[in-house]
């Protein structure tokens, strides 16, 4: 049983210009006081093709976390445009919010992000080199994709064992390879037809 469950993530100031910082208001519930801090990360996926272009926008420690409901705002700077492949700058990508405890990831919230030119002219005739100052970032806030992982919440004793159990999942090195948990391998489909999120039960 996870000690921490995320109740809500509100995407603040959305849509916003490409260069403005990401802001997520995260509320979560903790069933038992945690001995150590939670680590939250925002990862911006630069390109669907390769994880090489992932950027960790920021990582913060959150604590102390006593039992109860809590909330905080996680703000992170916009991604560095120079690290994004030009072909992937405009269009759909993904931003991920992950949380780890003792180095074990237990929740991953993913949002589709659409970067496009609000200016119709630019949209029709996009400049060959993406103009980031004109780009608008729109996070599809209504459709978070939440994946929860089972982790060991107690102190170290059999932590290694728990991690070993998940080794196969951690070990797959290709982003396209099968997903580690059954029922999660959602084939590509347009957001309107996304099935009800099946990950909640895990």
């Amino acid at each position, binding site marked *: 049983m996870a000690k921490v469950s*995320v109740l809500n993530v509100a995407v603040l100031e959305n849509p916003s210009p490409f260069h403005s910082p990401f802001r997520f208001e995260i509320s979560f519930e903790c069933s038992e006081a945690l001995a150590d801090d939670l680590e939250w990360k925002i990862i911006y996926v630069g390109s*669907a093709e390769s994880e090489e272009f992932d950027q960790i926008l920021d990582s913060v*420690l959150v604590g102390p976390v006593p039992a*109860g*409901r809590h909330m905080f705002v996680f703000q992170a700077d916009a991604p560095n445009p120079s690290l994004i492949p030009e072909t992937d700058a405009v269009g*759909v990508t993904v931003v991920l919010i992950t949380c780890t405890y003792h*180095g074990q990831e237990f929740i991953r919230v993913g949002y589709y992000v659409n970067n496009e030119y609000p200016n119709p002219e630019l949209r029709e005739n996009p400049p060959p080199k993406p103009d980031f100052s004109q780009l608008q970032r729109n996070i599809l806030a209504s459709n978070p994709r939440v994946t929860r992982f089972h982790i060991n919440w107690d102190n170290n004793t059999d932590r290694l064992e728990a991690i070993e159990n998940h080794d196969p999942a951690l070990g797959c090195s290709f982003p396209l390879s099968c997903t580690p948990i059954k029922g999660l391998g*959602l084939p590509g489909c347009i957001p309107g037809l996304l099935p009800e999120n099946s990950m909640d039960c895990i």
Partner: protein
Amino acid sequence: MYLASGGDDKLIMVWKRATYIGPSTVFGSSGKLANVEQWRCVSILRSHSGDVMDVAWSPHDAWLASCSVDNTVVIWNAMKFPEILATLRGHSGLVKGLTWDPVGKYIASQADDRSLKVWRTLDWQLETSITKPFDECGGTTHVLRLSWSPDGHYLVSAHAMNNSGPTAQIIEREGWKTNMDFVGHRKAVTVVKFNPKIFKKKQKNGSSAKPSCPYCCCAVGSKDRSLSVWLTCLKRPLVVIHELFDKSIMDISWTLNGLGILVCSMDGSVAFLDFSQDELGDPLSEEEKSRIHQSTYGKSLAIMTETQLSTAVIENPEMLKYQRRQQQQQLDQKGSAARETGSATSVTGVVNGESLEDIRKNLLKKQVETRTADGRRRITPLCIAQLDTGDFSTAFFNSIPLSGSLAGTMLTSHSSPQLLPLDSSTPVPFGTSKPSTEPVAATGTRPAGDSVSKDSVNAASAPAAPSPSILTTPSKIEPMKAFDSRFTERSKATPGAPALVGLTPTAMERLKEQSLVKELRPRDVLESSSDSDEKVPVTKPSSLSKRKLELEVETVEKKKKGRPRKDSRLMPMSLSVQSPAALTAEKDAVCLSVPAAALKLPMPGPQRAFTLQVSSDPSMYIEVENEVTAVGGIKLSRLKCSREGKEWETVLTSRILTAAGSCDVVCVACEKRMLSVFSTCGRRLLPPILLPSPISTLHCTGSYVMALTATATLSVWDVHRQIVVVKEESLHSILAGSDMTVSQILLTQHGIPVMNLSDGKAYCFNPSLSAWNLVSDKQDSLAQCADFRSSLPSQDAMLCSGPLAIVQGRASTSGRQAARLFSVPHMVQQETTLAYLESQVAAALTLRSSHEYRHWLLLYVRYLVNEGFEYRLREICKDLLGPVHSSTGSQWESTVVGLRKRDLLKELLPVIGQNLRFQRLFTECQEQLDILRDK
């Protein structure tokens, strides 16, 4: 009203239905699939060292049993989680099923070690171990859920073998004989579950009323994916359903009425079967069932429960009357409550809604962000309670001031630490002086005041953002296949986490990637920090000064909020009634001077003139004009007082530094340590009092005058009776040792001085003990854990105004939400609640606040009654009653803080009468009070 769950994480969790939250959805799931019921974990039970395989509540819910792959069965005390009553050891294999004897004499367990063991609940020792039917058992099943019949006669095992066929073994209670079994399943039986009801044949019209033997009904589930239902009066199964699932049956549960059955399977599905009474028979009522138990086993071992308590004999007619009256009152209250709810709910909704909005609006600004030793950002999350209900607690753990009616006066203390580094103009490195409450980079882009910055940011981004219709075009978003895996796949590298010792070939690759990311990471960090470094020096001077301004404005505003409190009996003196200039000067002085070893409190500087409002109803002002040149070049000071239009004035020879007034007296402190006191008409009451050192703060309530001097000594006089209440008492004992400041001073109408300190503690000086008493502590963990909701007579009963309430400044929600916020074991909860209530009663007593004393005493007694603490209750009653026959040697006082003790007792009696357990105590007190009345 509990639910227990066991998991493969070795834990048993006990859940309670949370009734105050409506249906809600799980984050990330579709809105349609709302959880109708909300369950909150109230206890986590830790003892097992392996997966928990089964949990079972005993009859009457006194015990909870759990079994595990660690070969043990643990018995938990369901009245006092997480107390363990016994750990049953003896199995040499994984224990996979549990069942309680319906009369509570035994508990049986079945394990992989091919044995079924029956344990006595009397001494938790082994009664018998049955192995014969299981000798042939090979292979394993996931579970072995056995079951005891509701009449107690039979115990039916899971997976047993008879002539190499799988069976469910029937074990008779009499001598634990194993002569019968349920046969027919093709694979091992995983679950047996008896229907909780005992049935009897449906009486057909006209048939002879021959008393048929009652019988039981049992469902058997198996690895062969089929389910069979048996009646003990039939030789063959009532029904068999083959191929119900794709995989083995895992568990079976009957509905309480005995007509429905839920079956779940390994394949992840649940089946519901519905029976009619024609099929199963007529269920016996609970009384008939317990009659069967009684006739078979004598008095059942079940523990006396609340329901049984209600059948206890009432020994006294008075008691009966009280019980009746109580019931009637409850009915009346319900009726009136129902009428009032309409208006009440709408009001609270608005109030809470606003507050929640406030929290959310200011969250980014208010949240505390620090840097760890290794330079990482660390955010302290804001603790909220139930956002769903709109209910929230004032942040318990990081004292962020939330605007509440009572919290208003306390705000000053929160803002003063912030003022310190900024106003002192000592060179402090910007980065370290203040744990920046917002990202440093953002300060540069916020020229406007903090309070409007949010809006301005919104406004700034608005023109750049065209209409949302263009932007939110989901149809145009074409997610690529690649992304889907990103949503679900665990991140490969967790920098900062200890490197894993790879055991698989892929681990090497993973380590490489980790190091790659690690390389990337510091660079990111560097970049971001250099960014902020560039911005900070440019904006530093301006932002600093602006911030200073904002903060000042803020504090003044907050003080204004704090001021409207009009309590005619006492005046919280939050240093706010003076002119703003004097105020800030004084505040700074407080902050700066206190850390010194020799205590030195701020002194008001001489002013040309100032005005002071003593009270607004009746409106009363004091005007001071210093150095009014009189004839012959002599400089005099003039004191003017106007009260409801009537004015008087007088002159003093030295300059007036500070003034204070109440409805009875006006007093002024002048230079040369002189303190003068005047009546409401301006008549001098005393020759000037010489203070031991210059004045710091002066205060009046009623006829009491309090003077706090710069050397931190405190004096209180009653000028009417012309006596000293507190004589030059040093604040050294409460202020020494740390850099605390006095944030609020209060003088109660009984002349008790109370000091609120900046660390959230409040002390009052107890003249009779000549000692400082701690009456309030913001960080008091007791207050956070206490939960006496059940003892509150009504929703708004928490709101009891008085000096204690002002000092503590606690929102009315405290003491109610503990159970919502924390999963504290009941016993701990009881202890903390008792301790908290006792300290409240004592504090109210010390402050001589009779109203509050009565309030807390009532609450405390109600809690004692509800939780059944007899000794303490008896002691209270004894003290309140006093000696019935007058004896000269008695030390007993008939009043407490102006309340007659026996009247209090009369008030408490109906409360005590609510619990029948205390009927003796009730009767005793009642009789003695009657004797006293007749005398």
